[in-house]
């Protein structure tokens, strides 16, 4: 059952258009991640759904009802902000109690509700502290607790892990899905970190250029990106690209990279002759082959448990390969290797539109 729906939503400030004609539906209990770079309007979208700002046009519906005329305090939404937005003059417990008090709950129910959610988020020992006495991690959990306290149907989380240190961010990334599922709310989670998006989402809506470029499961986004832009945003190191063209002949379909023929799936035959952008993910580059694209290793840079090689073909095309650090025979700088590309990580995009070509 659709809990939240956005139809043809647009927002402009004067002549500056933030986004235009956004459509999105979220089912009850679903976690939808809104992913995009800074300045793409993700926070503004959340504000529109919460009701603290008005859209220029379009309809927002919660639980099937159009909420355009409903003030934020009556929308039944819980929200956690990037910079926490805790009330500085109230204790952590009072902060968390706010939605319960606003709903007019009796004092003992308020206390019980606050303790329950504080225990869940492991901040029950700092409930009496003022916000300025809390660490960043505790502030973030207090903000989350406040959003969850009244068990809202819709949860809006605006990049809650952004201002939290790396270690804690990692811990929360593992804990949050369980927490959010337990709450049963429909969640809209905003982030710029693709790993966070893939880790938390049932579906990801990629916001770019004022539109949702792709809305799909993490698997679809990563394995079948709709555009070159989406492919670039997911993956570290980023996908390798080269501008070339598709050619078909008796041997099959190929592109020419660095003067060398690189075979691609025969399914692309329909697009033979077109100008394309060839893309291959670094983890799909195999450098242990005896034949393929000739390249020299320019630099070797470790990246956590993987080793990234910067390679260059004689014609000057630079590309990256990402190997597990435990792999045998990692080449040294200066070594000459042959690269082969696995089909799963290879994509062809239309050079003009950036859209991925299907075989």
């Amino acid at each position, binding site marked *: 059952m659709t809990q939240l729906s956005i139809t043809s939503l647009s927002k402009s400030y004067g002549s500056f258009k933030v986004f235009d004609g956004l459509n999105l539906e979220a089912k009850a209990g679903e976690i939808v991640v809104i992913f995009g770079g800074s300045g793409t309007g993700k926070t503004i979208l959340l504000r529109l759904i919460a009701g603290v700002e008005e859209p220029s046009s379009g309809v927002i519906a919660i639980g099937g009802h159009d909420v355009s005329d409903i003030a934020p305090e009556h929308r039944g939404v819980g929200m956690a902000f990037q910079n926490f*937005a805790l009330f500085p*003059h109230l204790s952590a417990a009072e902060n968390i109690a706010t939605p319960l008090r606003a709903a007019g709950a009796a004092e003992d129910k308020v206390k019980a509700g606050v303790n329950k959610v504080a225990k869940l988020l492991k901040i029950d020992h700092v409930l009496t502290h003022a916000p300025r006495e809390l660490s960043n991690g505790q502030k973030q959990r207090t903000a989350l607790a406040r959003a969850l306290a009244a068990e809202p149907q819709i949860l809006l989380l605006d990049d809650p892990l952004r201002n939290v240190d790396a270690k804690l961010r990692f811990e929360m990334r593992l804990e949050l899905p369980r927490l959010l599922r337990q709450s049963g709310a429909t969640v809209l989670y905003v982030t710029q970190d693709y790993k966070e998006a893939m880790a938390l989402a049932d579906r990801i809506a990629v916001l770019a250029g004022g539109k949702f470029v792709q809305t799909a499961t993490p698997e679809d986004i990563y394995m079948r990106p709709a555009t070159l832009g989406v492919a670039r945003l997911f993956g570290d190191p980023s996908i390798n690209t080269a501008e070339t063209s598709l050619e078909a002949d008796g041997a099959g379909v190929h592109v020419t990279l660095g003067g060398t023929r690189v075979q691609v799936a025969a399914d692309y035959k329909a697009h033979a002759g077109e100008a394309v952008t060839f893309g291959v993910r670094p983890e799909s580059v195999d450098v242990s082959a005896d034949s393929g694209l000739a390249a020299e290793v320019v630099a070797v840079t470790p990246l956590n448990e993987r080793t990234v090689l910067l390679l260059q073909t004689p014609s000057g095309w630079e590309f990256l390969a990402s190997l597990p650090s435990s792999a045998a025979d990692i080449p040294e700088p200066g070594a000459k290797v042959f690269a082969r590309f696995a089909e799963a990580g290879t994509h062809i995009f239309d050079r003009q539109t950036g859209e991925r070509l299907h075989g």
Partner: protein
Amino acid sequence: MDHTSTFEKTLRGVLITLVLVFFLFPIVWIFLMSLQTNETILRIPPSLAFTPIIDNYTALITGQLRTAAGSLQLNFMQNMFNSVLLSVCSVAVSLVLGVPAAYAFARFKFRLGEDIAFTLLSFRFAPALLVLLPLSLYFKSLGLTNTYVGLIWVYQLICLPLILWIVRGYFEDISPDIEHAYRIAGNSWWQTFRKISIPLAKPGIAAAGLLAFIFAWNNFVFALILASADKQPVTVGALAFVTASGIQYGQIAAAIIISITPTLALALYAQRYLVEGLSMGAVKG
């Protein structure tokens, strides 16, 4: 470890003393004058040794002034009452009007917003004399001359701009997200304003209120022209001591001491907030 030499320390002490003497001398002198008779004051050369008398203060408080020409009724305590009434009421009105207005200027970007705000501030720059003549004519035709209502209204020219500019800065400092959070939690705009915006801007409101009080209290020219003896505050009331039979310096001095005491006490008590409030108003906008 401080590396200032003894020479620098003594020099610093001397300079500070000189500055203090320069600023405090008039007040100290007036205080001494208030404890002397007219004769002692006018004696040449002036001497620091004298027998203090409190006759000047008693005269002001009881309202009876004995001069060479006989007894004179003094209305000084009435003037004190007027000062208190005018200042307190003006500040109250300006807070009720100014705080929501400051919020509007801080949060809502409307056309000409900055222009209106600056115009309101410009009232502080303009000399009151510019508007006094037309104002007195309007007052006469409106029947507002020598009324408390009229004076409180005019005093808004002094108080409102201060409230607006100082409190606006404090409201701007509150992250809008905090107010959004309170609303989303289920509270109306008014509840948010009452429970979140005002408490968080309280230091600014207090500082602005204090400053407005001090400026209202010190105002001279509006009450002088637009009111008569029974409604005039202490600033004007001191003129009464310039009598036909001579200037009563002793009483003037005592009147001055009594009239600066409230504002001096307030300023000393709240000086930290005043500095904060003043610099906030200066830096923002």
